[in-house]
């Protein structure tokens, strides 16, 4: 998000799901779309099969979408900037770039041209293992497409250099003028139902709702007058920084609403120690999650089926969530709990229903100003929607890049912080399964989904399995620098030799005991996709 905010002026998906249909070429990278965003995955398959759209998959794993792809490039995890710069190199060298667009809508082109000049196909092949003729084919396919869209997900961003990866992607789209029209753009697929909404609402340490910076006096004044208190100008801490600060004794209390860091966060044993030092850990959730089990106070809340409100999907579409059921007696909606707590704490909050809260959101969030519950009755609206007669914005950057000029930012390939060595010869990468979701708090309580995917399976290449003498279904201990876990094995050529892959839904096989907490300096995202490990038979 930080990457795109820097280069384009808005961190969200530039285009809409439906307008992917207009794309002649779809470059999909770091997104196992058919498993993590299945309905978009189906759309991609359909376009490839029945409408002649070309798909380029760039992924260390042989994901299912590869079977629909015209081209599959297989870099090692963590090598994204190398091949992205390589594509830019070829596109410039072969004059496939969009000069009028660059002249009119961008700045900084020369710096990137200079930077990528050393990323020759040969150089990129040496780093990533992608054969140079494949890279050239991919560059020509993307570079000569009428409409080309890039889709990416955590495979790009969850690295200590993730922000640079995003900038490299943005460079590519700017280079070819693939912005501001249907079937194009830079499209980060958001992983969770309302992650876009949580960001929009200012649940980030540096911005108020609507991405209005806490450091800007004018904006702080605005919120101070709306909320009737004085506000801190000091940027806050991110998730991983919070647990570090807790470990150091600087943070004394953490209040968690509807998350389960004890499964999803990196370096879990460190996190557990950090939480143990807290004077107060409050967890508000629908189940006694792994995080709730270590809390001082647990507050029972309601699920999305039991309350009204709005979610925002990956394409910035604000949609109404409606109450279908009464929740368990004794549980309360999160908003009711917060109102009660805040009022007891001394800052009164009185709202009769979620719509009243939404009306306040509209007042302080310019992108939401034109959205009302009444309008949402006839379908979702994509922000920005500045006034009540505005239809919403399916395609960002139309006619003009939000930032004014799209900014080319030169970025360099730097090897990931953890590279395999003699003691830890494998790269462990992590991700999701089709049948489960995130911490598994919900899906692991669904009989069918557990039946379909009952337990953790670590994927390992057949040649590595043979070397280690491991059989299909056998158990291994995956040992990293920060911890280890035991899991069954699945032998598959989905992963290349030297790489193992595990899914993080399983509290009993906690992959995140191993993952590292090295942060991207800008986005503060951690490198969940590359950890060095060894595999022991057990």
């Amino acid at each position: 998000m930080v990457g795109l905010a820097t280069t384009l002026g808005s961190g969200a998906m530039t285009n809409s799901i439906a307008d992917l249909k207009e794309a002649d070429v779809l470059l999909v990278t770091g997104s196992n779309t058919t498993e993590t965003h299945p309905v978009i995955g189906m759309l991609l398959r359909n376009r490839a099969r029945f409408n002649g759209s070309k798909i380029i998959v760039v992924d260390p794993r042989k994901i299912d979408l590869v079977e629909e792809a015209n081209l599959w490039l297989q870099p090692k995890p963590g090598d994204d900037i190398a091949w992205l710069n390589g594509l830019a190199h070829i596109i410039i060298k072969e004059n496939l770039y969009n000069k009028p667009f660059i002249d009119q809508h961008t700045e900084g082109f020369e710096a990137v041209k200079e930077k990528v000049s050393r990323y020759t196909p040969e150089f990129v092949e040496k780093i990533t293992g992608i054969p140079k003729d494949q890279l050239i084919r991919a560059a020509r396919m993307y570079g000569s497409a009428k409409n080309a869209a890039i889709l990416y997900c955590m495979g790009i961003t969850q690295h200590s250099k993730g922000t640079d990866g995003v900038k490299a992607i943005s460079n590519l789209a700017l280079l070819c003028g693939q912005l501001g029209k249907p079937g194009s753009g830079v499209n980060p697929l958001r992983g969770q139902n309302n992650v876009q909404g949580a960001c929009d609402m200012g649940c980030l340490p540096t911005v108020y709702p609507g991405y209005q910076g806490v450091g800007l006096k004018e904006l702080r004044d605005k919120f101070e007058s709306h909320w009737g208190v004085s506000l801190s100008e000091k940027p806050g801490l991110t998730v991983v920084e919070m647990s570090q600060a807790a470990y150091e004794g600087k943070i004394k209390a953490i209040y968690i609403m509807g998350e389960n860091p004890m499964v999803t966060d990196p370096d879990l044993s460190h996190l557990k120690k950090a939480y143990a030092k807290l004077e107060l850990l409050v967890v508000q959730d629908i189940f006694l999650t792994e995080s709730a089990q270590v809390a001082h106070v647990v507050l029972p809340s309601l699920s999305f089926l039991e309350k009204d409100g709005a979610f925002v999907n990956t394409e910035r579409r604000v949609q109404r969530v409606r109450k279908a059921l009464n929740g368990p007696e004794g549980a309360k909606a999160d908003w009711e709990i917060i109102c009660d707590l805040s009022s007891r704490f001394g800052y009164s909050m009185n709202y009769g229903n979620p719509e009243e809260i939404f009306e306040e959101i509209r007042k302080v969030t310019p992108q939401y100003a034109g959205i009302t519950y009444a309008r949402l009755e006839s379908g979702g609206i994509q922000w920005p929607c500045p006034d009540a007669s505005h239809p919403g914005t399916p395609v960002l950057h139309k006619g003009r890049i939000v930032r004014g000029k799209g900014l080319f930012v030169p970025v360099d390939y730097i090897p990931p912080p953890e590279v395999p060595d003699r003691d830890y010869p494998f790269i462990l990468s992590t991700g999701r399964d089709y049948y489960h979701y995130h911490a598994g708090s919900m899906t692991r309580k669904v009989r069918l989904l557990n039946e379909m995917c009952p337990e953790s399976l670590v994927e390992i290449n057949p040649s590595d399995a043979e070397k280690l003498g491991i059989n299909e279904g056998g158990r291994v201990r995956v040992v990293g620098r920060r911890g280890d876990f035991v899991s069954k094995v699945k032998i598959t050529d989905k992963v290349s030799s030297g790489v193992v892959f595990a899914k993080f839904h399983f509290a009993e096989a906690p992959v995140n005991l191993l993952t590292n907490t090295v942060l991207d300096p800008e986005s503060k995202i951690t490198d969940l996709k590359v950890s060095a490990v060894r595999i022991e038979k057990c």
Partner: protein
Amino acid sequence: MRMTINGRAIETEEGVTILQVAQQNGLRIPMLCHMESLIPTGSCRMCVVEVQGLENPVTACNTQALDGMVIETDTPKIRELRKEVLQFFLVKHPLDCPVCDKGGECDLQDYVYEYGIQKAEYQVEALAKEYKTYSTPAIKYHPNRCILCSRCIRTCREIVGREVLDLKETGFDTRVEAVRPERCISCGECLAACPVGALTENISSIKGRVWQTKRVSTVCGYCGVGCNLEANVVGNRMIKVTTKEGLGTNNGVLCVKGRFGYEFVNSPERLRTPLIRDNGKLREASWDEAMTYVSTKLREIKEKNGPDSIAGLASARVTCEENYLFQKFIRAAIGTNNIDHCARL
């Protein structure tokens, strides 16, 4: 181009089927094998219409509309033909509507009723086909009820792209079979496509007829696609999830989690009361006690260590309204910007 349907002059653009023109003009033509998002096959023949100048009726779903066509969609002759079509479906389709999950929202049942068929003229004792397991435990397969419209097969191929299903055998023995069960992803698109009760959901033990069920239109709570779905509720129990063509970005499509992943909501493990840790163990507490505890403790910590010693984690799982209030609480009430959520995880 201009054409006439049921005596009405209609203007339309080129390149559409007779069915599309009719639908655009609010005229209903019955159909069983066709769905808007599938390539039309014209196999069920329920959508037959008469076109002036043509000797035989044509199927509206896959016949191109042409300039000057004069079309009748509901003549006595056409109604007779459709009755015959329905009679042929009833040769094998058991009349077990009272025990069928689909009763009340079955296209075949509705057409049989609409066309006034009193009796299945040619019904043979249905071959007691062996119950065949399907490609997913989420769905029950009742081969006897299948009318071979192939909507399930085509949906799996054209929408989902998995090609799990195909027709096997020929003639009277023709049946749908999961020929590539290993490719099934249990998305249930075949179930949603089935116009009769040949495929039924095998998840909820509680059932409800359509008129007993409350259908609430909402958004899926899993990934970021934001599929629109309908929560089907009987009493206060979720019994299934449905959706329909034209609804939301997903346009009637769902995945396994969206369609079948709702069971957690009825789970006996749901939290029902606040808990407070006492001597190392969590014990039940009243809301008043828990809220007093939290607010007092937060105030103490704030007074002793300053607002920046407190942090909040919001959630990508709760609503915008709740996230807004939460960050407002952390910023305005506590007085710190230590607010984040798991966007990066």
